[in-house]
């Protein structure tokens, strides 16, 4: 059975009220996609739940999900559960009747009834059509089987079910052809490639993304895409699917055949207008609507991709949501005169390795239009803007989208452009973007997915949201495609620092105690506070505890007091409570220590035995050169550690984790020094040490950098003659940053001393969860050098003593709690013990 996305168990989806008791008018929405569901949200936000009895029909059995995130789902970067916008529960909780999986066949506009394919009829007072679009399948020989269905192996890319089918196919297919070199086709191609398929792209136009780009930019994009390993065939149609019972090859109009066992058709979408046609509404390309989204029937409206407004049909989410807002204003009476006057469209490509952002027009249309172009084909960069009457009317950013935030708001709101036009495309001075944020009008739309303005964000900050995360939660900014997150962050920072009510919590170490880290550390020492609950009692307003502060406080207390702190299990995150990394199904992953990535046959044998004994579903080598046993039941953890007989690898903690090494001088032909031994020594010394965020190190035996030392929190590189370079503040995760060279030293012992000194300085001065790649630039490399190398603040001795205190306090946690649980039921399962619909069953 197909899993229902955002589903709920059988039973009612909403409370039904007897018709005779119902005083509300009947609002029926046909279509439960991004437009329909957003419209219902907008109506509810305006108090429409009291005005209307709302019924929503959806073709798909699922709740409402974020269709624009299907590409990341196909790429395996997002889980389908995480793209659910409104679950079935949400409809029930809001008193909305959801008829998911029920198709409306036609409307009887005279009787004001909708007829569903299950034979039921539903009366309406107001009807909103939000039927969206469908994947256009161009006529091709052999594309359909005899029953009219698409041939096995041919997929559209429009729904979660199509995405699931493609994902399933990636397991058995090896070669894919994607038809269509537009946004969706490119995203599909890259996603399929990420599953290891050989992908070829067939595009009927002379260059890629021809709807958005000019020929020159399209040619640069083509080279970037081919550099990713995706073959591109331009200016040619696919005319035939060869195979008979399933796809075996795709035939092109020029006679070539491309071998393939998967064909994805992303050749555009067409509005779903059948219902309008069958019901006698005026339909051209889409269902024709006026400025109030009304069709030619006064009680029937159309919004989203099925609607045609002033001749335009949109295939993007932002216009659909603008439709939803206007229509909700009109129908609820919030603003009966609200009107929609069209959208300015902007799009971004969600493809790793190719950055494209496009808005408005891409070439001048009038004699007086200004055009500014920077083109660096070799670098894959092509930037252009079109300016009319001192307003930005178009921009194309290919290969470098750093200016997209500023340009988007200039485009959306017509904000003044700088005299020096070149600054629209390149950074000429620091701080330009901050000025941009300050200059943005309050109603500038920041999050196009969720329609969140700068004013909304500032309002959330002044309303008490103390972090970017809180603002995002409150406003939903950044909760769509996520591409605006950096702009949201800058606005929040600007709002918190400016004339608006500043959020004092921004400088606090943890949200629940109004103190910056130095003051908090001083107070803890002065008052001899040794447990998290003692800190709350003494220092928190009203003595109240705060869940989100506990983990940071525990870490701080361990650093300050070492073994003399009073542990409290509820002060720890679950990972630290049971010394494993919680996984999405509530099981844990166990990573034994494997210093420097070196192991022995005996250890491997023991790990294998344990994995079999405890039925570990997955054994995986981690990026940090260790072995991860995934899917371990909580109740099995103590016995498993006992059987392993190896120390914890701390793969779960905000702590020092691992030192990755290359082979070094033992076996490598090029190794200049013994990186493996130094890695082992570093890992031995710093094992288990708490820190504001996770710490990863690496040591390499030569500048070939096989263990990626330049992108670690601390990276060590042998440069010959017994000398080692020490880099700090590198990262290669969500952020990528090459570390800064702190010093070149002439012995392994000097590396160990300097690494410890830096670690302790970071532990004492970094904010909670601040990685070294943020910490080092914030403090400044020169200052860190002065403090650690020249002892400019006379604290080096204290730093050395501080790290040594923590080193001395190390005890392998697996040896402790495993034999005697710290609290009753420490390892009792917290997983649901009977299957629940939303819980991945273990």
């Amino acid at each position, binding site marked *: 059975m197909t899993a229902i996305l955002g589903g709920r168990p059988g*039973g*009612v989806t909403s*409370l*039904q009220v007897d018709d005779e008791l119902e005083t509300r008018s009947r609002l029926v929405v046909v279509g439960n996609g991004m437009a329909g569901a957003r419209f219902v949200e907008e109506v509810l936000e305006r108090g429409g739940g009291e005005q209307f009895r709302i019924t929503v029909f959806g073709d798909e059995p699922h709740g409402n999900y974020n269709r624009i995130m299907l590409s990341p789902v196909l790429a395996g970067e997002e889980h389908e*559960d*995480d793209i659910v916008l409104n*679950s079935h*529960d*949400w409809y029930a*909780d809001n008193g909305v009747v959801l008829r998911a999986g029920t198709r409306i066949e036609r409307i009887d506009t005279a009787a004001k009834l909708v007829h569903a394919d299950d034979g039921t009829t539903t009366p309406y007072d107001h009807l909103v059509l939000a039927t969206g679009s469908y994947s256009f399948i161009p006529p091709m020989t052999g594309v359909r089987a005899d029953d009219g269905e698409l041939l096995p192996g041919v997929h559209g890319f429009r729904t979660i079910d199509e995405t699931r089918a493609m994902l399933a196919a990636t397991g058995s297919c090896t070669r894919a052809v994607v038809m269509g070199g537009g946004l969706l086709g490119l995203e599909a191609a890259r996603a399929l490639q990420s599953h290891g398929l050989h992908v070829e792209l067939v595009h009927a136009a002379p260059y890629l993304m021809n709807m958005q780009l000019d020929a020159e930019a399209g040619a640069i994009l083509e080279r970037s895409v081919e550099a990713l390993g995706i073959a591109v065939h331009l200016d040619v149609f696919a005319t035939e699917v060869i195979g008979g019972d399933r796809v075996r090859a795709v035939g092109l109009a020029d006679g070539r055949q491309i071998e393939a066992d998967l064909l994805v058709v992303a050749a555009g979408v067409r509005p779903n207008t059948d219902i309008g046609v069958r019901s006698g509404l005026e339909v051209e390309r889409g269902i024709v609507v006026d400025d109030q989204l009304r069709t030619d029937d006064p009680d029937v409206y159309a919004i989203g991709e099925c609607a045609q407004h002033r001749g335009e049909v949109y295939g993007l989410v932002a216009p659909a949501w603008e439709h939803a807002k206007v229509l909700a204003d009109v129908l609820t009476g919030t603003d009966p005169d609200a009107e929609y006057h069209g959208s300015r469209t902007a799009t971004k490509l969600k493809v790793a390795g190719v950055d494209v952002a496009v808005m408005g027009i891409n070439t001048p249309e009038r004699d007086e239009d200004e055009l500014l172009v920077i083109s660096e084909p070799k670098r894959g960069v092509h930037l252009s803007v079109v300016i009319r009457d001192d307003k930005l009317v178009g921009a194309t950013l290919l290969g470098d989208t750093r200016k997209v935030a500023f340009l988007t708001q200039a485009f959306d709101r017509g904000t003044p452009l700088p005299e020096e036009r070149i600054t629209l495309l390149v950074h000429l001075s620091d701080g330009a973007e901050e000025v941009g944020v300050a200059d943005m009008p309050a109603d500038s739309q920041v999050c196009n997915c969720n329609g969140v303005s700068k004013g909304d964000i500032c309002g959330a900050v002044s309303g008490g949201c103390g972090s970017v995360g809180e603002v995002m*939660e409150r406003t*939903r900014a950044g909760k769509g495609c996520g591409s605006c997150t950096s702009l949201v962050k800058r606005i929040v920072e600007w709002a918190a620092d400016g004339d608006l009510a500043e959020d004092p919590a921004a400088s606090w170490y943890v949200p*629940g105690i109004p103190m910056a880290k130095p003051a908090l550390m001083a107070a803890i020492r002065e008052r001899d506070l040794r447990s998290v*609950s003692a800190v709350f009692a003494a220092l928190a307003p009203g003595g*109240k*505890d*705060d*869940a*989100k502060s*506990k*983990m940071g406080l525990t870490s701080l207390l361990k650093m300050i007091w070492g073994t003399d702190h009073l542990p*409290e*299990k*509820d*002060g720890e*995150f*679950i990972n630290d*409570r049971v010394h494993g990394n*919680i996984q*999405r*199904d*509530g099981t844990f992953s166990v990573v034994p220590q494997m210093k420097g990535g070196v192991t022995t046959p005996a250890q491997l044998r023991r790990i294998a035995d344990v994995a079999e004994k405890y039925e570990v579903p997955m054994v995986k080598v981690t990026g940090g050169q260790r072995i991860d046993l995934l899917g371990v039941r909580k109740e099995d953890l103590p016995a498993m550690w006992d059987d392993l007989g190896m120390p914890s690898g701390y793969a779960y903690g905000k702590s020092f984790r691992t030192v990755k090494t290359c082979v070094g001088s033992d076996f490598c032909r090029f190794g200049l020094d013994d990186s493996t031994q130094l890695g082992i020594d570093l890992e031995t010394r710093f094992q288990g040490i708490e820190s504001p965020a996770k710490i990863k190190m690496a040591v390499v035996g030569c500048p070939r950098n096989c263990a990626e030392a330049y992108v670690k929190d601390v990276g060590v590189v042998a440069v010959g003659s017994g000398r080692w370079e020490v880099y700090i503040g590198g990262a290669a995760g969500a952020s990528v940053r090459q570390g800064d060279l702190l010093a070149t030293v002439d012995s392994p012992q000097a590396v160990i001393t300097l690494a410890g000194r830096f670690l302790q300085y970071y532990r004492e001065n970094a904010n909670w969860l601040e990685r070294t790649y943020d910490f080092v630039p914030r403090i400044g490399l020169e200052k860190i050098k002065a403090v650690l190398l020249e002892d400019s603040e006379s604290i080096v001795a204290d730093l050395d003593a501080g790290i040594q205190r923590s080193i001395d306090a190390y005890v392998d946690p697996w040896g402790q709690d495993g034999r005697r649980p710290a*609290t*009753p*039921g420490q390892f*009792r*399962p*917290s*997983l*649901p*013990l*009977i299957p*629940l619909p*939303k*819980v*991945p069953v273990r």
Partner: protein
Amino acid sequence: MSLTDIRITAEHALGRVEEIPPGEGRTFVVGGEQVAVFRLRDGSLHATQAACPHAGGPLADGQTDVDVLVCPLHLYAYRWSDGSSTSGAAPIRLFPVREVDGEVVVEV
């Protein structure tokens, strides 16, 4: 009121209060429901559905304070006062729970 709104509940004793450490939660199966019971540091008891409505996370493994419970998987937070989420998720279901002669008694 529809039939679906009528719920027959019963009280269930879950064992000694001391079995739930202060500040932590434990999961029980009672009356066909999976219930996570928490003993806060102020001594109060709270009971909720065991699985997070967002993605089924084990709420008993979460962290809590006197106001909210935070799921360990994606840090969605829920208010003890009414079960509503501070972070945009669907609300959690709360169950009446109290201490009777040192025993945890939950109504499900």
